[in-house]
């Protein structure tokens, strides 16, 4: 057997590769199952199952968390990052934590632009939470 291959001189030790493909297939079924759940929830959004906007937001949040779970399994098992040594994992994962503030700050900014635009820079009250803004205007014009 040619296991324990040292692939390059700077590598100090090689761990034995896993012998079976059981784990790969388990992760495949897990990813497929998560995707199916996401699709069912997404189909519900398309068919207006959830009613209130709070409930819709909650379902969208659940879908986001399921996608993060998929990302975890792809990176950890398929990309074998989980099998690397801890320092290596940290140099990849820690910088990605910047995304937490990156996402929060920019979405917050986008929402702020919307409010400023709707209130004319804060000088008037927003008409409503408009869902289909231009419909009314168009009706008035005709």
């Amino acid at each position, binding site marked *: 057997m040619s296991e324990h291959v040292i692939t390059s*001189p700077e590598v100090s030790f090689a761990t034995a590769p896993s012998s079976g493909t059981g784990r790969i297939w388990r992760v495949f079924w897990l990813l497929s199952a998560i995707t199916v759940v996401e699709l069912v929830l997404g189909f519900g959004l398309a068919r207006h199952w959830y009613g209130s906007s709070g409930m819709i937001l909650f379902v969208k949040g659940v879908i986001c968390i399921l996608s993060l779970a998929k990302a975890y399994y792809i990176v950890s098992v398929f990309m074998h*990052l989980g099998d690397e040594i801890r320092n290596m994992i940290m140099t990849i994962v820690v910088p990605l934590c910047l995304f937490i503030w990156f996402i929060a700050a920019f979405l917050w900014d986008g929402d702020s632009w919307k409010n400023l635009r709707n209130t004319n820079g804060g000088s008037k009250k927003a008409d409503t939470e408009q*869902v289909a803004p231009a419909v009314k205007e168009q009706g008035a014009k005709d």
Partner: protein
Amino acid sequence: MATAAIPAGTKWWNGGRSPFNASYGKVMMWYFLMSDAFTFGAFLISYGTIRFSVNYWPDPNRVFNAFPGFGHMDLPLAFVSLMTFILIASSVTMVLAVHAGHHMNRKGVEKYMFWTILGGIAFLGCQAWEWTHLLTGEHISILDNGSLSILPTTVTGNPWGADLPHEAIAAALQKTPHDQLVSIASTLHHGAETGAHHDVAKMADGELVKMIQAANVHVTQTGPRAFGGYFFGITGFHGFHVLSGVVINIIMYYKTKLGHFDQRGHYEMIEKTGLYWHFVDLVWVFVFLCFYLI
């Protein structure tokens, strides 16, 4: 995940060895992918920012509801789920190729690389169909000047705004120029005899208006321009990654066939290619999330 056990007394920083116990190429592939993750992240966050900053955003379930061969049937999420499963499947065959490489199994690597390449090409084919469908789609929309026109989805305009109330259609038809009335009327005859277009071209405006109104057409307002720009920009950038992944996979397939990795004594190139391919799948998870699901 359990991290590898480190033998006692290992001196990582004495030079000549990787502090991460990984080859230079593999570590740099990881850092390239990390930077690429920030590129895609920046695109998607920019999309989110614009989406949060406007009062109206198109409903993905109305935009992406077609499936090849099913005509105008309303099938939200169907085609994109097919694309997603193709990519997940090709990810699995890739990891199986890496696994075969760990065991120096050349036949196994060849077999699984072949299926991975096929999956990548299938995905690209699906994307080509989807883009064509959006770019050539004919939807009746009201323009800013109050007239009706036929709009596809492009980076500069799209017909995915709110529905125009039925009462407003009559007035909009009065403002619509003859040539647009003709093209709207001819879309009503799709699937009919090919001579239909010549007939409507000869009709008077009043007749055309009557005909369009009788057809009970569905008219929308124009949607936010950024929608098309972001959609084609981000899925295009992802598609370009898939394309380059397929090219790299094909090169690796041939190098495997020629026995280069057997001569080298290891299949680490397949591992590095695998990292790139899985990253493409990983990005799709988020593109799928941001554009189609929520």
